[in-house]
């Protein structure tokens, strides 16, 4: 069994600064067909455009809670999820809308979920992209970071116990690697030789905290040898490189060779959520990434360079726009959850809790539901201002 990662070329010196985009990796011959390469473009474009639609809905106050963007990270989400098969299971994080779309989530589900509709995937119980579907192969995340690593260790343990040729993939950010759950989950999965891929999306910030304050490790792949597992590292803004690195890890898992830690280096161009004004980001850093290393711009240039015609790309853009418009119309027409559904399904048995005595016979208790105010800095007056 390989004891060390396949990635050995990463710099061992100072951590790469988030301010300096990584140089584009050497282009390889794509092993994907043209249809598949256009597929990747479709998912990335859908991710970005769907989030842009959500921003509009957020500003119209139709999104009930916070809005989380993955702007600039579409390639790492889409490329990594594209390495999985239908029967495989992934556990997304908040910046993995693209991964969920690849795995079968539909735009209308995302829109209904953000708008807290009664027929949304969680019937209004959970926020944003926190939902799952074991049939399509994704497990709903929770907010405490790192917790999905042990859970996915167990999901993949079941694959091993049942002799199934299935693989699991779990995403964590640079921040989640600091948690105890990350350590316990990856160690458990390593010891049990679970068919699990752990993807660390190194995007520069965890909320406002830069990676330099999360870890002294020069790069996240350096953690792999400590667990006795393999490692892969790729430019997370290169969708093909991301796909290929993840595919190697997935293939290794499917061959029964256990866990791989995949580090995808990318950059979070938006704040933690829409309310976050990113005051902690050095001037010019975001703009530099947008200008020099946008994953969709890079991929478009590559596709054109490979001979993909503009009308083929325009057709995908038109399809994405149409699908999002249609999904928005459907989602907006959906109703709010029935209040009594709040008491259903805590347990299989009993199937529902009883309303408290002062709510017996009632189905609504307030006339106007108060809207959440800003959580952070977005609407706050400048310090020192009257």
């Amino acid at each position: 069994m390989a004891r060390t990662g396949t990635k050995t070329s990463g710099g061992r010196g100072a951590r790469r600064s988030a301010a300096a985009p990584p140089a584009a990796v050497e282009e390889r011959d794509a092993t994907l067909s043209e249809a598949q390469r256009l597929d990747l473009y479709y998912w990335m474009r859908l991710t970005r455009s769907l989030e842009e639609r959500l921003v509009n809905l957020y500003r119209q106050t139709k999104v009930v809670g916070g809005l989380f963007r993955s702007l600039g990270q579409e390639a790492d989400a889409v490329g990594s999820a594209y390495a999985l098969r239908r029967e495989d299971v992934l556990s997304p994080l908040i910046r993995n809308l693209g991964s969920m779309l690849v795995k079968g989530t539909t735009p209308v589900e995302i829109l209904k979920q953000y708008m807290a509709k009664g027929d949304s995937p969680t019937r209004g119980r959970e926020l944003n992209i926190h939902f799952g579907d074991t049939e399509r192969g994704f497990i709903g995340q929770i907010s405490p970071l790192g917790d999905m690593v042990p859970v996915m260790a167990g999901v993949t343990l079941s694959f091993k116990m049942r002799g199934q040729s299935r693989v699991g993939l779990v995403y964590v950010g640079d921040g989640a690697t600091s948690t105890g759950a990350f350590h316990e989950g990856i160690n458990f999965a390593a010891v049990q030789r679970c068919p699990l891929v752990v993807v660390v999306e190194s995007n520069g910030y965890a909320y406002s905290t830069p990676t330099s304050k999360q870890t002294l490790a020069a790069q996240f792949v350096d953690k792999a040898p400590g667990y006795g597992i393999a490692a892969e590292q790729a430019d997370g803004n290169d969708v093909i490189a991301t796909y290929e690195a993840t595919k190697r890890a997935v293939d290794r898992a499917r061959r029964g060779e256990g866990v791989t830690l995949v580090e995808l280096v990318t950059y979070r161009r938006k704040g933690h959520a829409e309310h976050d004004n990113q005051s902690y980001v050095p001037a010019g850093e975001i703009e530099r990434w947008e200008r020099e290393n946008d994953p969709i711009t890079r991929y478009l240039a590559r596709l054109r360079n490979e001979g993909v015609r503009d009308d083929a790309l325009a057709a995908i853009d038109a399809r994405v726009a149409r699908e999002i418009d249609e999904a928005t119309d459907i989602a907006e027409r959906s109703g709010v959850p029935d209040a009594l559904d709040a008491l259903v399904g805590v347990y299989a048995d009993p199937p529902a809790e009883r309303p408290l005595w002062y709510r017996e016979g009632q189905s609504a208790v307030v006339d106007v539901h108060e809207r959440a105010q800003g959580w952070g800095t977005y609407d706050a007056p400048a310090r020192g201002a009257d």
Partner: protein
Amino acid sequence: MAEITYLEAIREALFEEMERDADVFCLGEDIGAYGGAFKVTDGLLAKYGESRVIDTPISEIGIVGAAAGAAHMGMRPVVEMQFIDFIANAYDMLTNYVATARYRAFLPCPMVVRGPSGGYVRGGPFHSQNPEAGFVHTPGLKVVYPSTAEDAKGLLKAAIRDDDCVLFFEHKYLYRRIKGEMPGGDHVVPIGKARLAREGDDLSIITYAATVYKALEAAEQLEREDGLSVEVLDLRSLAPLDDDAIDATVKKTNRVLIVHEDTRTGGLAGEITARINERCFEWLDAPVLRVTAHDVPLPYAPSLEDFVLPQTADIVLAARRLAAY
């Protein structure tokens, strides 16, 4: 049929459920080759092998999280906490992840977390705890805490078959002190039903786990010395609580003493008292009283531990005050 101990009854339930259902498997620290810190899982590895009896790293978050993931996929994991005190390490995983899974994501989480609990064993602060109250407080979890060998077996089998996560507290003081004759056949005790441990007319003691025996001792003494007829209700299930059984005993005797080994503030006695107050106030002839542990970490020295924990004499004293009210 020969009697077996409380501990052997738990082991018997594990063997029977693993035999009945190939999706049942055990995982925990030192449970395989060593057979567990108290030998509860002794013999399981030899019969079912390493794939179904998994010796894990020291990793409560990892073990509980992995059990949840396997449970989502249709397995029925049974996790052993080497001592239930260590369940605190997995508190986030149990309360944030497992307990919410069905509600927020429609993910079934049929799993059991079991482990040796409780004091009177000179175990000190980290091998004697009764952390049930924090989990009873969490919607989405079920909690059982048997006092008899029959219930230990029957409730564990019910817990393994339940479609949600059940925390199964085993009292280590009772492991080898308590014996019982197992009912024949497939002995399953339903979760959510209390057991009337002793019938009486003058006052009721509501309790569970090891203090059931202290309550029964006190009842004997009160009958002998005071001519009092004391009813003892063994809750067995703490979440859900058997409200019907609680109401019935309150309405029968009109005087209630609640006894538990857990500490006082935020302990279950407060919750039970509140429920009685809301539903049976007009049936009460006296205020509901509590005998519990003092609000301190459990100390090691016998003179200290015995002072902190509820004793039979405390129950007798409280019952006499209640009877005289």
